[in-house]
């Protein structure tokens, strides 16, 4: 039984209480902090205590069962919470407490869950290793010298370390699937627009999706169904009811699974290859038809992504100017441009500054056509590849989540492009706005390896049901060679 189901049923039936759930979360957070994981940012026993009281009152006053009663959720620090700071792991927002709450958090809390802690991340979600946090890097829970992936590395590490059974992360270009793969947990990115972005600090607005980590597929699915559904505060939110979950499958009969050849390069890491080969064998054994397909524009995903994303990021981060909130730098004698430049120049870390500069460059006079507009056309072609595959009878695409298992801290911080290439298999679904997930399918020298499933838009239920079948058939902790 999944942890989320176990906890919520226990709290609903009275076998345990929300109070005990928050005290347990407190104990686990203390231990994780002591271990030096650095995955949790803000949390407080007082706040956890007040949440326990709130959930108990809610349980008494509502006749409807709270689907997530007593479930602790780690929330990435770029998702607005009312009682804990929301800093995006940036100095520029150090200590900032949002005066409004993200829709996803409101829905979680209304369902009986509580925010256990805010989770560390790459500053403003820019990074693939959670080394770019202003508050220090997050350790991989099993290999302290390695990275947990990013940018939602704090959320992934907390779930992998067993601190919380589920966590909210955010995806812009793989920032949940990639750390899920590195940490050996489930990471689910919904269709763009399935979950409201209201309260998610914008990074790449056309790409951003609040996404979910879980120990198991069922954990993530239950949380996703609570936070999904139309929100009038987000003009890009799909006008659909909350996701209703399909019965988990035990086989894959009748499904056609596509293997895009561009995602299985010759130089794929041998451990990754072995784990994926095993997963593909299992797919066949479970009754799926497996077909090779081609997504010819997929090779342009990363360069396209690293034009669109910085362009949107540069615009989205213009609001951090030291005028209305956040940190102001420059001293009392400075003029206005001096204030801006000092506040932004010292408030943002190195990767954020790079993205802002690149994003400004690709939109600036004389370059916008060559870079931004070309990339937005390429994005159409990349998306068409996916929709063509799906309309040709493919139900789900199966790929590795990452080209390698978790790399060592410091390996890629000096080379931005090498870091960007960690997103090579995850960027495509983000550009196309499609739902996708990463599922642990084995380990290589102890390092977790993830398999990615990509589904047609709004086909999360089908994708999650199939993932549950894989999960039941494959021991994700098994060493592959």
């Amino acid at each position: 039984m999944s942890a989320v189901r176990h906890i919520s049923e226990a709290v609903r039936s009275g076998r345990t209480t929300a109070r005990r759930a928050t005290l347990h979360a407190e104990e686990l957070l203390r231990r994780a902090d002591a271990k030096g994981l650095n995955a949790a940012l803000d949390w407080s026993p007082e706040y956890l205590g007040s949440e326990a009281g709130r959930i108990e009152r809610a349980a008494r006053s509502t006749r409807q069962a709270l689907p997530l009663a007593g479930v602790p959720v780690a929330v990435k620090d770029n998702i607005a919470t009312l009682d804990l700071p929301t800093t995006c792991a940036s100095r520029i927002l150090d200590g900032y407490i949002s005066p409004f709450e993200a829709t996803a958090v409101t829905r979680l809390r209304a369902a009986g869950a509580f925010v256990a802690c805010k989770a560390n991340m790459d500053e403003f979600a820019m990074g693939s290793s959670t080394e770019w946090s202003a508050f220090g890097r997050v350790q991989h829970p099993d290999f302290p010298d390695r990275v947990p992936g990013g940018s939602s590395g704090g959320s992934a590490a907390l779930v992998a370390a067993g601190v919380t059974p589920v966590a909210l992360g955010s995806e812009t270009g793989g920032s949940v699937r990639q750390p899920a793969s590195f940490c050996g947990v489930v990471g689910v990115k919904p269709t763009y627009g399935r979950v409201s972005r209201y309260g998610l600090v914008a990074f790449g607005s056309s790409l951003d999706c609040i996404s979910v980590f879980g120990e198991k597929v069922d954990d993530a699915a239950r949380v996703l169904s609570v936070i999904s559904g139309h929100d009038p505060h987000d003009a890009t939110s799909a006008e659909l009811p909350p996701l209703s979950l399909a019965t988990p499958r035990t086989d894959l009969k009748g499904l056609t699974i596509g293997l895009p050849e561009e995602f299985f390069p010759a130089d794929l890491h041998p451990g990754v290859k072995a784990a994926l080969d095993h997963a593909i064998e299992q797919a066949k054994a479970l009754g799926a038809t497996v077909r090779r397909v081609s997504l010819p524009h997929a090779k342009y995903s990363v360069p396209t992504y690293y034009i669109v994303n910085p362009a949107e990021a540069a615009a989205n981060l213009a609001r951090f100017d030291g005028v209305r909130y956040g940190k102001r730098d420059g001293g009392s004698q400075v003029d206005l441009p001096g204030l801006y430049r000092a506040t932004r120049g010292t408030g943002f870390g190195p990767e954020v500054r790079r993205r802002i500069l690149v994003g400004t460059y690709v939109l600036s006079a004389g370059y916008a056509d060559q870079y931004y507009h070309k990339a937005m056309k390429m994005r159409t072609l990349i998306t068409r590849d996916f929709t063509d595959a799906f309309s040709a009878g493919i139900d789900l695409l199966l790929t590795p989540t990452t080209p390698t298992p978790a790399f060592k801290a410091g390996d890629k911080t000096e080379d931005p492009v090498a870091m960007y290439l960690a997103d090579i298999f995850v960027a495509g679904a983000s550009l196309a706005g499609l739902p996708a997930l990463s599922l642990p399918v084995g380990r290589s020298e102890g390092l977790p390896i993830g398999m990615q499933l990509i589904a047609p838009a709004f086909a999360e239920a089908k994708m999650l049901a199939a993932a549950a079948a894989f999960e039941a058939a494959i021991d994700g902790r098994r060493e592959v060679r």
Partner: protein
Amino acid sequence: MTWETVIGLEVHVQLKTRSKMFCGCATSFGDPPNTNVCPVCLALPGALPVPNAEAIRLAALASYALGCTVHATSVFARKHYFYPDLPKGYQISQYDRPLATGGQIEIDSPERGRVRIGITRLHVEEDSGKSVHDRVPGKTAIDLNRAGVPLAEIVSEPDLRSPAEARAYLTAIKQILVAAGVSDCSMEEGSLRVDGNISIRRPGEPLGTKTEVKNVNSFSYIEKALEIERGRQVALLEGGGRVEQVTQLYDSSTNTLRPMRSKEDSKDYRYFPDPDLPPLVLDPIWLAQRKDELPELPDQKRRRLMERYGIPAQDAGVLVGEAALADHFEAVVTAGAEGKLAANWVMTEARTVWNESGGIEVSAPRLAALIALVQGGTVSHQSARKVYTLLRTDPADPKVVAERLGLVQVGDSDQLGHWIDEVLATFPAEVARYKGGEQKLIGFFTGQVMKKSGGKADPKGVGPLLARRLGG
């Protein structure tokens, strides 16, 4: 050889909505600073814009009122620049796919008569906040109540040929938008703002380098500012110089322009489609309904008044200039007055009252009754004006008021004859000169009779009687 002036205007009008363009904050004017603000218009991290349906409806109406084509799909774009009253660091506007394009209006040019002015485009955008420079010593204070208020930007073709014509265009735009119910167009409250582009050339030559005139907050100032800039350009070119692209700020206290010191990069706005907002897609049926919803516009009204009531174009133009007066005029005619007379009264007496108090005060039936008294010779035109003034506060019937004041004209020949005899007896020398051939003295005698009667003598009766007495 003369210079031809080429002017195009960019007009920003506030759309008359209750809430802001992208959030639920009130648009009310004059509230304490930073009280109509929320996560969206403060650009807090995580806040998102959602467009206001009423702003789109009003913008579509405005577009049709200006003869534009409204596009079924238009796109919101981000326009980037840093300024402390621009919370997001970009303004949500429209760029390469505006709501509407290709309109035109007719205006009365002081120099060229009736001319057509092209409307390049109309797009929807949000306003910025307000920077106050004299509030905190040595600092600039920012009020974000205006930030996010919905605006339509209306860009004209460079079809205007003089500063006075620019002013006439603005007057026409204002009349159209007020009539369409789209905007209050109040410059005092900042709901109408204007930037001008001006260049000069020799007739027939290509366009000269244009400069921009900004910061102008009344129709007469835009005319003055453009006059100054035209003069400056003429002087430059005639002195062998060149016009450089520059933005000029107008200072009404000194009636001067000064160039804006602008950063070299300030024009690189880095527009791109706002990824927070899907395309604005408008249903063709909905658009057709908006077109039908348009009330009668000033130009249509002007034509109709001329045709139906037989009044001159000049009069119709004046009446249409203030919708309430045009309505009043029609009501006065409906109450029985003759068109031209009604127009005269409404354009003079009623308009004076309107300008004073913003009200009509003397109702249409009473004005019609008063006009009838003048036409029937019961009161003189001069007396009727006195009566009109009293009618503003006195609810009595116009005839009763005239009688009470003793302003009813006397047409009775005995009484008139009596006054005439007295006058002729008082001025024997003039009578002698008249009889000696100075016929024009008839006017003098008439005036004296009117004076003697205290204005009550009916001039139509005085003339013939006087002529008979003098001749006999």
